[in-house]
């Protein structure tokens, strides 16, 4: 029984470790290929192995390489397909990438793009691992409005329509943030009240303890100060209590 649960535990730890190692390796490879433009044989081999293991991070990296034309010939449509596929598998970075590509397409209506960006913002705002995507989505929403204004003829949009989109984005985001802040504030208040209640309970306990010890006959340990090398704490011991003062158990 023990060995079975131990094996399960060990398997789980190994699984978590291997996932973390894979993720760290992919991030490292991503940095080498995208930032340093290092497409050495060794790096491509790693990429190939990663893709074969169906790891979403490596597939996403492949999508970025196709979009930017790194090593592979530039293929925007293929990269969009990859990001779309990974988005449906809830891979956060691909969801952002897919939304980013959509903001650049003049034939996609804003009401198809904006909910996607809001979705990313709301989903990853509290997620320590992916929260950077939330702020990027917020910034992208701002930049998208600028893009719409710059490309209004190509996108067949009037100034009034863009103004309306702009106000709608701002109002929605503000409303979301206000609700979010209120919800979090409520939890903070509840936590504080709980802590205060515990402290009050402890305080009442201490007062009750002190009151119960005041009227009773002083026991040898209650009245006596702690023993030790400090003469002030030992005052009264051995020679009685000449001043007949109540002594706190220090």
């Amino acid at each position, binding site marked *: 029984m023990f060995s079975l649960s131990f094996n399960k535990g060990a398997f789980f730890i190994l699984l978590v470790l291997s996932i973390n190692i894979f993720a760290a390796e992919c991030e490292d490879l991503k940095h080498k290929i995208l930032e340093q433009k290092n497409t050495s044989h060794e790096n491509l081999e790693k990429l190939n192995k990663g893709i074969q293991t169906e790891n979403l991070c490596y597939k996403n990296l492949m999508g970025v390489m196709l979009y930017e034309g790194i090593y592979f010939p530039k293929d925007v449509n293929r990269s969009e397909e990859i990001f779309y596929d990974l988005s449906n598998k809830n891979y956060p970075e691909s969801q952002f990438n897919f939304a980013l590509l959509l903001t650049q397409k003049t034939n996609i209506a804003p009401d198809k793009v904006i909910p996607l960006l809001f979705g990313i913002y709301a989903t990853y705002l509290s997620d320590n691992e992916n929260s950077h995507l939330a702020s990027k989505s917020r910034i992208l929403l701002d930049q998208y409005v600028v893009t719409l204004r710059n490309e209004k003829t190509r996108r067949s949009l009037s100034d009034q329509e863009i103004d309306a989109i702009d106000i709608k984005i701002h109002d929605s985001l503000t409303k979301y943030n206000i609700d979010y802040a209120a919800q*979090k504030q409520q939890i903070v208040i509840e936590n504080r009240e709980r802590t205060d209640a515990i402290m009050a309970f402890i305080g009442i306990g201490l007062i009750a303890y002190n009151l119960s010890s005041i009227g009773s006959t002083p026991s040898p340990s209650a009245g006596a100060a702690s023993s030790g090398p400090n003469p002030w704490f030992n005052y009264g011991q051995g020679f009685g209590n000449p001043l007949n003062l109540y002594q706190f158990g220090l």
Partner: protein
Amino acid sequence: MKKLYPILILILLLTGCAAPGHIKEEASKLLSGECLELFLNGTPNQGYQYQAQSPAAGNPVFAFAKLERGGGVCAKADDLWDLPKHNCKGFNCDLPWEEIEAVALARCEVHLKKVEPNSSARCKIYARGNNIVWDKDVQLKLQ
């Protein structure tokens, strides 16, 4: 002399943290009046500068809206007093900056609506701690 130590410590605690010179200089380029005061406030515990300079005092974010008539509206938020802790990893309970930003933006917008109900100004993030991000271009790229 030794008798003066507690008084000196008390003075230090009460004065809190003053903003570094370059931060003061950069902040006063855009902020003024109450907003500048709020940003440079070094009062222990909840003063913006105190938090920005003391890692244990919480991570503060400052949001600001520039008004057409001059001046502005602002608000601050931090992860110690305004947000519940979650997703702690070991001893690290730091919350994502984005969460603190959301609260700072919400407060700033609410304040803006009260002060200037008809204004078209908008609240934006001015700084994360003492890292001033206002008007800094962000180049978004594929992740």
